[in-house]
């Protein structure tokens, strides 16, 4: 659920396909002929979607009590991805299409060799979807995914690497490590390999055996396991201890907001340039907000207006529409009472409460009515 600028490159349309688009629009008022066919195809292939790539679940394996790995077969036209990227998956449940974002935990080589992708997913206890997914997505279930996206990928430079992972934030690193191992195996053995250090914070560790085996086959890989139930969280002394030359490395961080913020703060305080710090987060961007904004927000949710790059604390007396207007945004609106649906706006992430239907929203992306919605958690709005 990163809001990094997306890397999916829209393929330039050929004359033929733009003619088809024009024709579908002119004759049927639809974006494409595939959309015209969609409800018919759904008769044969339930939940078929014209957008994205249709995969099939071939494996659903419990990793830990609350983490499972899905193995999917991807269609041939699924575009190649870079280790560290994520996909949006969309699922239909009780007539509703839900979208969720997960990092790919397998490597690009796994896809090339076996045609499969792995997604390692943490079950959110009160989530609408993940507890159900763990049970319902058995072998043979079709599932739609987007092309891989995201900027959290290994940089070209051959500097040594420090990876900092927290909890299920380990998933993109598994993809990267599998990829690096493959690269090392296929490269000339005599060339010295750059040092890689992984600092892994978790209560229960994922991929334990696999990582130990990796350490054996990759002498340049150093893994430090920090069990968060026993020892301290991240601080400068710890980094100094496990990785004394960290100032010279490329840094990759993925995990909870608190870990990203702490790592970023320690690294920049030690003079690491921002272009050497790469991080991936889930949900709204972990902002280091100005002190006065934080003070004003107390504990109220932060509303991010993604397009205008603003983040403001929510005022409980205001709807999202009023809050946007108070911040000089001018969203399209009509009746201001939830009747006309003019003010529909995309919510990228977070939970909102609809005061008219008295319902809580899903956490994923969906259209919401700004005039009758108030934020429950911090939210990101496409304004």
């Amino acid at each position, binding site marked *: 659920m990163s809001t990094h600028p997306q890397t999916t490159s829209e393929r330039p349309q050929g004359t033929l396909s733009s003619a088809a688009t024009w024709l579908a629009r002119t*004759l049927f*008022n639809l974006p494409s002929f595939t959309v015209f066919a969609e409800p018919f195809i759904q008769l044969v292939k339930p939940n078929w979607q014209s957008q994205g790539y249709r995969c099939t679940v071939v494996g659903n394996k419990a990793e830990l009590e609350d983490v499972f790995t899905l193995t999917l077969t991807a269609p041939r036209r699924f575009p190649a991805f870079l280790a560290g990227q994520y996909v949006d998956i969309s699922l239909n449940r009780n007539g*509703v299409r839900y979208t969720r974002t997960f990092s790919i935990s397998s490597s690009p080589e796994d896809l090339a060799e076996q045609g499969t992708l792995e997604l390692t997913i943490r079950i959110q206890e009160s989530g609408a979807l993940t507890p159900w997914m763990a049970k319902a997505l058995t072998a043979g279930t079709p599932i739609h995914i987007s092309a891989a996206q995201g900027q959290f990928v290994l940089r070209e430079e051959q500097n040594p690497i420090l990876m900092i992972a927290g909890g299920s934030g380990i998933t993109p690193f598994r993809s990267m490590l599998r990829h690096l191992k493959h690269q090392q195996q296929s490269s000339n053995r005599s060339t010295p390999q750059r040092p890689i250090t992984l600092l892994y914070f978790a209560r229960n560790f994922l991929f334990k055996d696999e990582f130990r085996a990796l350490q054996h086959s990759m002498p340049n890989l150093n893994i430090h396991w920090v069990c968060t139930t026993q020892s301290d969280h991240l601080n400068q002394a710890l980094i100094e201890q496990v990785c004394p030359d960290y100032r010279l490395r490329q840094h990759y961080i993925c995990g909870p907001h608190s870990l990203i913020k702490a790592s970023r703060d320690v690294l920049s305080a030690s003079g690491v340039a921002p272009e050497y710090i790469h991080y991936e987060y889930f949900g709204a961007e972990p902002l280091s907000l100005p002190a006065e904004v934080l003070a004003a927000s107390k504990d109220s949710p932060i509303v991010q207006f993604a397009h205008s790059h603003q983040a403001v604390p929510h005022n409980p007396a205001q709807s999202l529409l009023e809050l946007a207007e108070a911040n000089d945004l001018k969203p399209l609106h009509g009746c201001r009472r939830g009747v*006309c649906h003019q003010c529909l706006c995309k919510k990228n992430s977070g939970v909102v409460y609809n005061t008219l239907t008295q319902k809580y929203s899903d956490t994923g992306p969906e259209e919401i009515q700004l005039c009758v919605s108030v934020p429950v958690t911090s939210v990101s709005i496409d304004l």
Partner: protein
Amino acid sequence: MKPDQQTLDAFAKDLDQIRSDALAKVGEADANYIRKVIRVQRTCEIVGRITMVLGFLSPVWWVVGVLSLALSKILDNMEIGHNVMHGQYDWMNDPNIQSKTFEWDNACDADSWRRYHNHEHHTYTNIIGKDRDFGYGLLRLSDDIRWKPKNLYQFFAYMNLSLLFQWGVAYHEVAAERIFIGKRKKVSKLPISRKELRNAFFKKGTRQLFKDYVFFPLISGPMFLPVLLGNFSANILRNLWTSTIIFCGHFTENVHTFKMSECENETRGQWYYRQILGSSNLTGPRWFHILTGHLSCQIEHHLFPDVPSYRYLDVADAVQQVCKKYDIPYNTGSFFKQYATVVKRVIKYSFPTKGRSLTTHTA
């Protein structure tokens, strides 16, 4: 007589309960239903356009083609387009069944429709001067509107409006903004420029004319003229049907009108009350309700515009009972009975009212 505030508050609470009960049931069945209607509509369109060309074998094919295409257009406009654009199926989170992006087989640009219909008509229902759907600026359907000599011919104006209904719908916002004729207001509340409104009007209208009167006739080769006439007939049939159903929803004999002053700062109960007095229902078999896009449940549609239409028939019984409980009139009847009162109303207000008072109907 208008019920007191206490009654209306209790009334609103009961209606809110009906609404949340209905919404709690919404799910897979509703999603399957709307997808099924979309399949039927698209099948009708393809069958219609093909069989019309087979008219050279026998005119029966041509007639079947026209009826099938008309059915497609009616389903697209009424049960699919109108309801989807109200956001009734937005909860599905399906990008192709989404109020914000849906476009229909109608000369009216969907963005324009979403602006004036969902907002103006559904918020200010039957408020004279605010809801331009009340008479469309063409017809005098209440004493609140001053009689003019042109009203003497309004039955013919009504017939023309019915025949050309989709163009009336397309022209609605353009007329309100005086894009082509009339004196414009200094400030426009339009979220787009007047130029953009004009361009959208022409763009959508041209696209509809092009497909029905240029593209499909041309690819039919020697059947050019029969196909052109067939498409024209299908459009006319759809226009007559939609216009007639919509007139039955708001212009039957006992439908009330309101003044803006009555509706300022109204509570939810007062708003519900106005929606009920301003709308009328039609009874009939299931297929009839589907063809009206469930506007046969105009009352329920106005109370709960974003509850999926698939639920209106169930909800209607409960609403009728609640109205009975609070002694609030619930206007329903068979199509012919209701339509007869529409015709009567159009004719009645063609003439100046004797001893006309300036008050509205008791509301």
